[in-house]
């Protein structure tokens, strides 16, 4: 039982990071219909940018803030340079552009920061673990959870209460009707990419604090796919729940199944779940039922 609780709580804490990145992914898909396969690389860039600021001696919170700002700018630039010319082109072509972006960003990261694993030094969060009842949790996990939740709340309130947030949701629902009210779809797309970049950057930074930072942090971008498939591709609450569930499943699989295998269950398990979800609920838990032909 204790082991179960331990795994569950760690799963939720890590899952909150996935939820954050999944929210960014969903947003792009929802608003502009682009299936973004470069999400992992967006997390990489954010993480390295934050690390660089931190190593320049800027306090972590401030470094994280700068990462958000840079993420915002890069997001808008990416949309304008790479995605805008593709508006109205076939889905598959746009997906291939995001694949290209993934390689481009990965190459850029390797070019600038190299391929060795780097860690935030001195460590941002104290190493002593915290006891929640009988469960032991690293402080890194706890703070990562807090940061993710703060950002999730910030993004969700942005969608719910601000003019542009509402207009983004409106564009996702019915682009023509939104246009008829004077909403500029180009701004909406750019904002979606900006927010995705910001969310991914913070997600990557938090994960980098937990495991150290190298190219494989970009693997997070793939993990987002089972999370959003589970939640339904265009549901924001779905993405958040999906992220949490994937985090939990991953940890449970690691705890209970890894001793029967030579390893790697943790990596495979979320995708097995994704396939099962697709079999029985192709639109996920909260996705909009509509036919997509790619």
């Amino acid at each position, binding site marked *: 039982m204790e082991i179960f609780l331990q795994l569950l709580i760690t799963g939720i804490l890590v899952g909150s990071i996935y939820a954050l990145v999944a929210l960014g992914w969903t947003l792009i898909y929802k608003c502009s219909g682009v299936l973004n396969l470069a999400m992992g690389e967006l997390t990489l860039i954010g993480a390295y940018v934050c690390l660089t600021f931190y190593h320049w001696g800027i306090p972590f919170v401030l470094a994280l803030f700068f990462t958000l700002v840079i993420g915002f700018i890069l997001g808008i630039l990416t949309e304008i340079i790479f995605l805008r010319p593709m508006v109205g082109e076939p889905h598959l072509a746009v997906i291939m552009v995001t694949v290209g972006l993934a390689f481009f960003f990965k190459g850029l990261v390797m070019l600038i920061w190299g391929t060795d694993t780097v860690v935030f030094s001195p460590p941002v969060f104290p190493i002593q673990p915290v006891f929640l009842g009988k469960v032991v949790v690293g402080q890194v996990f706890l703070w990562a959870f807090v940061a993710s939740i703060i950002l999730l709340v910030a993004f969700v309130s942005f969608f719910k209460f601000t*003019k542009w947030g*509402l*207009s983004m*949701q*409106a564009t*996702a*629902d*019915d682009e*023509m*009707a*939104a*246009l*008829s*009210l*004077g*909403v*500029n779809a180009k701004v909406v797309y750019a904002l979606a990419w900006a927010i995705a970049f910001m969310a991914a950057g913070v997600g990557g930074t938090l994960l980098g604090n937990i495991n150290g930072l190298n190219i494989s942090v970009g693997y997070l971008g793939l993990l987002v796919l089972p999370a959003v498939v589970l939640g339904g591709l265009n549901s924001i609450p779905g993405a958040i729940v999906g992220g949490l569930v994937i985090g939990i499943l991953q940890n449970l699989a690691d705890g209970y199944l890894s001793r029967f295998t030579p390893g790697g269950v943790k990596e495979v398990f979320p995708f097995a779940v994704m396939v099962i979800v697709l079999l029985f609920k192709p639109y996920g838990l909260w996705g*909009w039922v509509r036919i997509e032909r790619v």
Partner: protein
Amino acid sequence: MEQKTNGVILKLNNIEVMYHEVILVLKGVSIEVPQGGIVALLGANGAGKSTTLKSISGLLKHEDGEVTDGSIEFMGEKIHHLSAEEISKRGIFQIIEGRRVFGHLTVEENLRVGAHLRGTGSATKERLEMVYHYFPRLVERRNIMAGFISGGEQQMTVIGRAMMARPKLMLLDEPSMGLAPLLIKEIFEIIKKLNQEEKIPLLLVEQNVKLALTVAPYAYVLETGRLVMHDTSEKLKENPDIRDFYLGLSDIGEKKSFRHVKHYKRRKRWLT
């Protein structure tokens, strides 16, 4: 500028519209909407009514259509080359056909998106009050997802949403589509009230010709992309062709024969 417009707020001069650079849909359409008036645009399916509205609102460009000839003037300014966003900034709002609410937003959120271009806190609240005044039915629905309310309420939401934007000209595309007759009556009464009290000029596209001719004092008739007739509603109601083709009325007691069908065809050809 103001004098030149002579109380005409919108003027279409002989416009020609093409889709995908090959398909000619409108051939020389000229329409005038007077300040504060209601003008109806009538015609069968595929006559180009919706296209006319879209060419005014600029939405045409998002369907790969283009005004290739003629001009559209709004308050004395040529607007046919502007983007949809620019045109809505000048105060023209189209209510596209088919009750296109934002289904995953609540009714009130739908209305607030309408105020997108006029977005300041207290003014938005005032506009909301105004919309709820005209559509009291929406008050109790304000926190329900717009996808789940009835068709009539969706139509009200969509009209209210455009009202939020302080329109200087509203283009209404078939507000009666798929609604029960009683609801249609209710909605048209509200539309008339909006026009009289808020002084918003309307260009109304409608398949329900009888209804359109009672609401609008002046009407244009389109057929396969051409303007074939325009007159006051009173005169159009008396016009034998309109009575025959659009109102389904002919002189009572007259026996129908094959000759009438041929006559219909001939008339039809003459019209187009």
